[in-house]
C-alpha cells in the first residue's frame, strides 16, 4: 500500500502537476516567475547559505539526472572501484555542504523582522522539503554505501518504467524506508515546484551568452 502510494500514485501526480501547472503559470502569471531573492534585505547569512546550497546541490541533482538518462555510460564509468570511491566521496562532501547551506537558509528566516515580510508558507514548505531531501540523501550516501552504483540498478529502471507508463515497483519495493522517504520527498518537491518560487530553476539564462551586449526592441520590427 505504502509502496503503491510512494512509487505509483505520487510520481504520476507530481508529473501531472509539473506538466500542466507549469505552462499554465508561464502563460497566465509570468509576473511571479522569479527567484524572490532576499539578498537586498539580508546578505550576511545568505552568503554562507545560498552558495553552499546551490554549489552543493546542483552537481548532485545533475548526477541523478545524468545517471537516469544515460545509465549505460555511468555503469561503465563507475565500473572501476577507484572511480566509484572518488565519485561517492565528492558527492557526499557536496551533499554535506548543501545540507549546511539549506540549514542556514532556514534559520536565517527565523526571527528576522525584515525577512518576515517576505517569508510565506511556501518558503517554509520548500525549505523543509529541501532540508529533508538533502538530509536523507547524505544519510543514504553514508549508511547505504555505493549508492551511485545501486541507484543505476534500482531507481533508474524503476524511473524508466514510470515515464514509459508501465510502472514496475519491484525494483525499489524492498529498499529500506529511508530510501522510500527520499523518493517520496523528491516527488513532493516536483509536485510543489510549479506552485512555488522553485520555478526559477526551470529558466536557465543561456541566451545571453551568445547575444550582443545591447538589446533593442522595436515596435515595428
Amino acid at each position, binding site marked *: 500500500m505504502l509502496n503503491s502510494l510512494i512509487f505509483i500514485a505520487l510520481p504520476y501526480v507530481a508529473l501531472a502537476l509539473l506538466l500542466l501547472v507549469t505552462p499554465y503559470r508561464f502563460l497566465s502569471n509570468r*509576473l511571479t516567475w522569479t527567484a524572490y531573492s532576499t539578498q537586498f534585505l539580508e546578505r550576511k547569512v545568505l552568503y554562507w547559505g545560498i552558495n553552499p546550497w546551490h554549489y552543493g546541490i546542483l552537481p548532485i541533482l545533475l548526477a541523478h539526472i545524468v545517471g537516469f538518462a544515460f545509465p549505460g555510460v555511468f555503469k561503465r564509468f563507475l565500473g572501476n572501484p577507484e572511480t566509484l570511491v572518488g565519485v561517492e566521496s565528492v558527492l557526499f562532501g557536496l551533499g554535506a555542504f548543501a545540507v549546511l547551506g539549506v540549514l542556514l537558509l532556514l534559520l536565517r528566516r527565523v526571527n528576522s523582522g525584515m525577512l518576515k515580510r517576505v517569508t510565506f508558507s511556501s518558503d517554509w514548505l520548500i525549505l523543509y522539503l529541501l532540508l529533508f531531501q538533502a538530509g536523507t540523501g547524505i544519510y543514504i550516501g553514508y549508511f547505504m554505501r555505493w549508492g551511485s552504483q545501486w541507484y543505476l540498478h534500482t531507481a533508474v529502471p524503476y524511473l524508466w518504467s514510470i515515464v514509459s507508463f508501465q510502472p514496475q515497483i519491484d525494483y525499489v519495493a524492498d529498499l529500506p524506508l529511508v530510501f522510500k522517504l527520499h523518493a517520496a520527498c523528491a516527488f513532493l518537491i516536483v509536485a510543489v515546484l510549479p506552485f512555488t518560487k522553485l520555478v526559477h530553476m526551470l529558466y536557465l539564462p543561456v541566451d545571453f551568452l551568445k547575444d550582443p551586449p545591447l538589446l*533593442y526592441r522595436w515596435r*515595428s520590427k
Partner: protein
Amino acid sequence: MDVRAQIVMVFNLDKCIGCHTCSISCKNIWTDRKGAEYMWWNNVETKPGVGYPRQWEDQERFKGGWVVDGKKLKLKAMGKGPTLANMFFQPNMPKVEDYYEPFDFDYGNLAGAKEGKDQPVAEAFSQISGKKIEEIQGGPNWDDDLSGSQVYAAKDLNLKDKKVIESYDSMFMQYLPRICNHCLNPACVASCPSRALYKRGEDGIVLVDQEVCKGWRFCTSACPYKKVYFNWNTGKAEKCIFCYPRVETGQCNACAHSCVGRIRYVGVLLYDADAVEAAALKGDAELVEAHREVILDPRDPEVCRKAKENGISDNWLEAAAASPVYTLVKEFGIALPLHPEFRTMPMAYYIPSLSPVLSTWGDTHKLLEHGMIPALETLRVPIGYLASLLSAGNEGVIEEALKKLIALRVQMRAENLGLPADPALLQEAGLDEAAAKRLYRLFTVAGYNERNVIPPQQREEDDPQRRKQEAGFGILKKTRGGSK
C-alpha cells in the same frame, strides 16, 4: 551612419532650488507601492554630498558601468561566465541600508490612542518589517543642504580638496536632480542574464520587461548611477520609465512637468548608433567631445534622409530640429553628461551651476570690476569639482561652458540695467548677441512648449487597420507569430 532618435532631458543646475517637487510627483505616480517605498526613480541630491544611495559614485565598491579593456569595452563588474557563477549571491548589489530603510508614521495613533496622561504621538515604523523604528537612520535626501558636513559632504568622491568645505569663505552648495539617464550604451541592459532590460528602438527609453525579469539582480549594480532598483516584494527590478505613457502622447514627464524652477528641458536628439561604441572607447578627456560627435545635426539633409530610411517620421524630425536639447548640448555645448567616464553614454545632460554666484570671500572689489558677476578665475565653485562630475576631469570643457554662462549673465545684467556691456566678453566665450538672446530666452521666459518639444508617437496610427480589427486600439497582447 545608422540614425536613431533618442528622447533626452537637460537639467539647468543653476535654476534648481532643491525643492524635491519632481521626486514627489514621480513617487506619487510610480513608486507609491509595496516593495517600491525606498525607490526614488527621480531624486535630488545636495552636492557636495554622498547622494542616494550613499556613495553611488564609488565604482570600486559597486562595480557599475564599463571599462576599456584594450580595444573593447567590458562591464566593470564581470563577464558572462562569472555572471552565471554569481547568480545565487550577487556580490556587488547594494543593500537596503545603502539606500535607507523606508519608514512611515503611525498617524492612526493620534486619533486612536487610549486616553492617558501624555499627548499621543505618531511613531515611526519600518515599511518593510512593520516594526517601530526608535531612531530613523536615513532617508532619500538625508544629507539635504549639508554641503559643509564632515559626515556627509566630506565623503563626496568628487571633492578632491576637503578643505574647501571646512571654511565659510570657500564652501559652496548645489543640487543635483537625477533620473535614469536612458543611456546609449546601457550597462544594465548588457548585464541582464534574462535579457529583460531593453532599449526601445524608437525613442531610446530603457525599460525592464516585468514578465521576463527573473530577479538575478545584476542590473542593480551594473548601472553606475544606481537607477535600477530591486523590488523586495515582487522580486524583480524596476527603474525610471521616462514616463513613457505620457511621453508617447506628447506630454512631458511628471518630474519635468512639475518642476518649480523650470530647470528641465525635454527634446529629441538624433544620433549615429554606429558611432556609439567608438565614442565610449575614447580617453577620459575626450569623452564629452565624443558625446557631441555622436549627436547628429537634425538640419543636415543627409542626416534627415538616413533618418527617414530608418523609419523616423517627419514629426520626429521636426521636433529634432526644434529641440531645445540639441541647442543646449551640441550647438552651445553648455549641457554636459553626468560622469561620462562610466562610459554608458548617459542621455541626461546638465548645465553646470555657477551657484553660489559668489567669489571666494574678500574679493568683492574684483566683483565690482566684473559687474557683480564673478569672473571664471574667482568663481567659488571649484572647477575641478564640476569637472569630476560632468566632464570626466576635463576642466577645459567646464571652463568653456562656465565662460558662456558668465558672459551671458554679465550681458543680460548690463542690458537690464541700461549699462554698457562689454561685447568682448561674449565674443571670448564664443557667443554673439543673438545667441545670448536665444539662451536667455530658453533660461528664463521660455514657455512649456519651448522647453519641452516632445513629438507624440501616434502608435494608434501604425497599421491602424490591423490594430483596430485584431486588437482594438488598446494594444494588449502580441498576436501569434509576433507583432507584424
